[in-house]
Structure formats: C-alpha cells, structure tokens
C-alpha cells in the first residue's frame, strides 16, 4: 500500500501530519549533527566543541517534548487510524530513540572533556572512529529510509547493526587486553570503553528507527527479533 499523508479531506489534518514528520526529521538532523560533533570533539581533543554538544542537548530534549505534545494533540483531535495512526506512533517512538541518541552523544562529549583533562588514551581511537562512522551512517540511512518510506533500505540498514555489535565486542576485548598489559592506563582506557559503549547504543537506536519504518509502511511489528511478522 502506498504511503500518502496529503490526501485527507481535512487539509488541516494533512498539515498536522506533515509538520509532525518534518519536526521529527529536523530533530533527527540535529541529533545526527550531535553525534558527529561529539566524535570530532573526542578525536581532536576539542573541549569547546564538546561543551557545545552538551548545550545543544537541551534543545534536543525540548524537541522530544514538543513532538510528544504535537503527537498527543493529533491523537486527541483527529483519532488517526491505519497508516495515520502508525505514522503518529512511529514518530513518538522514533523521537524517544533520537533523544537517547542525543544522550549518548552527550556522554561521548563528556568523555571528550574527561580525556582532554586526564590526558589522551593510549589506544582505542581507531576503533572509536571506525564504529562512529558505521553508526553515523546507520543513523543517516535510517532517517533517510523513513523520509522515503523505504522498507528495503530500512531492512538493509537494520542488518548493519550486527556488524557494529561484532566490532564493538572485538574492540572491548582489545581494550581489556591492553588494560591487563598496562594497568596504569585503566582509567583512561575506561573512558574509551564508555565511548565505544555509547556508540554501540547509537547503532541500536538507529536499528529501532528502521523497525519503525517497517511498522509505518507495512504495519508489522518486527521489534525484538520478530522479523517473521513482516509478511
């Protein structure tokens, strides 16, 4: 079934749904920027950029609350059904994921500040950069798939999370080995580990967004490994 949200008899309803989607995608753009900035701040030991990430975080929290309110109003006033209902539900869910991605970006920014204060970690930057690139791509592709109602691309992006998880586990093993070899580095390497953990979580959230694309377009709930629900 094709997705059209601009054909309601009520023009106001068209506009409400359209602006809800736009608002969510704007929030998505902002969050994507946050992840990029946080990783850059870490890589280049730029505590100023990291501070900026922490400030913008507040805007993202506000955006989530506004999206929630707008979605609630649409439900209350329009009683959306079928694809309209799924659209509103998916936006609410994605907004929560985006807000958490924002939180993870803030954590990375805090690590960036910590690492500039405590001195750079001896290891782990390559891994951070590698995983950061992967999850940033996932996040972009997930939001892009949502914009285009593209289930195929959502499923492809969703599958990438497995590789991210594997890379994360292997990076963790490496960091543990390093800490065992040089216990003096533990506190700094721990910062790297927390960062990796945050990045890996961002991958999970991107995956959740992909699942919402499938829910929106197909009406199938494939969360928690229920891909068989996709008929």
């Amino acid at each position, binding site marked *: 079934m094709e997705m059209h949200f601009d054909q*309601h008899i009520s023009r106001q309803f068209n506009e409400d749904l359209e602006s809800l989607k736009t608002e969510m995608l704007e929030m998505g753009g902002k969050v994507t920027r946050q992840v990029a900035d946080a990783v850059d701040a870490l890589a280049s030991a730029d505590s100023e950029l990291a501070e900026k990430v922490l400030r913008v975080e507040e805007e993202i929290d506000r955006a989530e609350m506004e999206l929630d309110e707008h979605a609630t109003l649409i439900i209350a006033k329009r*009683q959306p*059904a*079928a*694809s309209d209902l*799924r659209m509103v539900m998916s936006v609410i869910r994605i907004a929560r994921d985006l807000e958490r991605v924002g939180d993870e970006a803030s954590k990375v920014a805090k690590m960036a500040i910590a690492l500039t204060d405590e001195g750079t970690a001896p290891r782990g930057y390559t891994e951070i950069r590698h995983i950061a690139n992967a999850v940033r791509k996932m996040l972009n592709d997930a939001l892009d798939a949502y914009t285009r109602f593209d289930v195929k691309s959502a499923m492809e992006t969703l599958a990438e999370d497995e590789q991210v998880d594997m890379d994360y586990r292997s990076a963790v093993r490496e960091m543990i080995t390093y800490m065992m070899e040089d216990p003096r580095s533990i506190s700094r390497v721990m910062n790297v580990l927390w960062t990796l953990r945050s990045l890996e979580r961002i991958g999970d959230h991107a995956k959740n967004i992909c699942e919402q694309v499938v829910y929106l377009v197909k009406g199938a709930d494939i969360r928690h490994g229920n891909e068989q629900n996709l008929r």
Partner: protein
Amino acid sequence: MTTMTLNVGPAVAAGTETAEQESVKTNAEIVKTVGQPFSDDAKLKMRNVNVFYGEAQAIHNVSLDIGRNEVVAMIGPSGCGKSTFLRCLNRMNDTIEGCRVEGELTLDDEPIYGPKVDVVPLRARVGMVFQKPNPFPKSIYDNVAYGPKIHGIASRRAELDEIVENSLRRAGLWNEVKDRLDKPGTGLSGGQQQRLCIARAIAVSPEVILMDEPCSALDPIATARIEELIDELRENYTIAIVTHSMQQAARVSQRTAYFHLGKLVEVNDTETVFTNPEHELTEAYITGRFG
C-alpha cells in the same frame, strides 16, 4: 401491514440512496471481499446477496457471516448499501416497493427469504433499532409491553410487568423511568427514547438486533450509554450495527465490514481494520481521505 412489531421507522427513505450511486464512478475491479467475512459460529449467513431497487443494483454479490454473540459494524460512505444490506436481514426491504433481494440468507441455517417464512415472527427474532428514536405515542410501559402482547409472549399483567421491568433494566433505563411508566414515551429525552426503543426491541426476546445508526441523533453522553449497552447486550444477542461514526465502529464491534458502492470490500477484526486494513479503499475511507 404487520411490520409494526418493533418499529415503524423511516425505512422508505432507502430508495433514494441508489440515485447517488448512478452518478459516482463504479469500481468494477472490486469483486472479491478481502479479510475474514466468515465465522465459525455463524448466527446469520449471507451468501451472494444481490439487492435491486427496480433496475438499479444496490448490493453486488455480498457474502458475510455474523457470528453468535458478536457485534459486526458496517461502515462506508453514504449510499454504499450498508443500510440496504442490514434491512435484508429481517426483510425490512419487503416494505419498499420495487426492492428485490437475491441470494442465500439464513438465520440459524433456516432461510430468511422463503415462501413459508412469516415475517412477523422473523422480525421478533431479528429486532431492529433505527436512527431516530421512534417510540409509539403510548406510555413508556405500553411501548415495551406492546411487542410481547401482540406476539402472545405474555398476556397476564404480572408477566408483562416482569418483561417490562427486565427489558428496561437491560436497556439501562429502568432507574430513570420506574416512577413514570404511565407517562408518554415521547416525553423522554432523545437518548432515553432510543434506550426505550432498545428496551422495546429486546422485550420480545430477539436473537439478533439490527441497529441502523442508533446514535446519530444523540449527544455524546447518550451515545456513550448506548455503546456501553451494546457491549452488555452482546452477551445475549447477536448484533449488526450500521454506523457513520468510525470511532463508534472501533469501540463497539469485534469485526468491521467496509462497504463501497454496493460491494463488500473488506471484513476484518476491528483492530486490524483500524490499525492496518488490507484494502486501500478501507484505508482511504477510515483515514478520511477518499479515493
């Protein structure tokens, strides 16, 4: 005419729906109903039903079951044939001149349209509630007692008293009217009148209740009470309801049937219809697009 048993509603208005259909482009491609039109425990079975008003065909090859203790909601744009179809189920269409019903319709596997079928007991088994409450110009008591009396269900005063009280109680009206049973039914508020009509319908112990937009003339509070009542009545009756309010269909029914230009487009669990309908036309209608 003996169609007075349960109602004397404005059934004749139905003929006008067909004129509209002529002007709308026909969707010839829809022939097969999607979803689950059949029930394992069917009270009413309709197979390949066609209805004509003179030359014009109002219903095209509709097959549908209505299960025991089930509420089936019929939705669709004006003139889609949902009311016409509903009125086939207790032969209210017989009262419309030039109306012809074809196909197989059964109630408990007995034909509804048969040469030997007497419509008077049929309409006692299949009661009807109309859009506008239409109490008889009689007392509240007599409104409810009329049916049981003429059907010979009760003759003694004590029996009638019991039926009247029970029916009014089940319709959720007893407490409001018990002290003024001798007052005219027409003096009640709209919502109370509609509940009186429901009490009148259930007084003859029907097995099926047909409701043709029972709440469209009522305010939201009265509507909520009727919907609550429909849910309670489901324990004992099979209910088919035609409604223009999709929210109402979503609230009261277990299955929803979507009619479009005289065809049954989709029948599915109400949850499915309102979250993920199978047919594009259903989606377009329930989301307020119209395609």
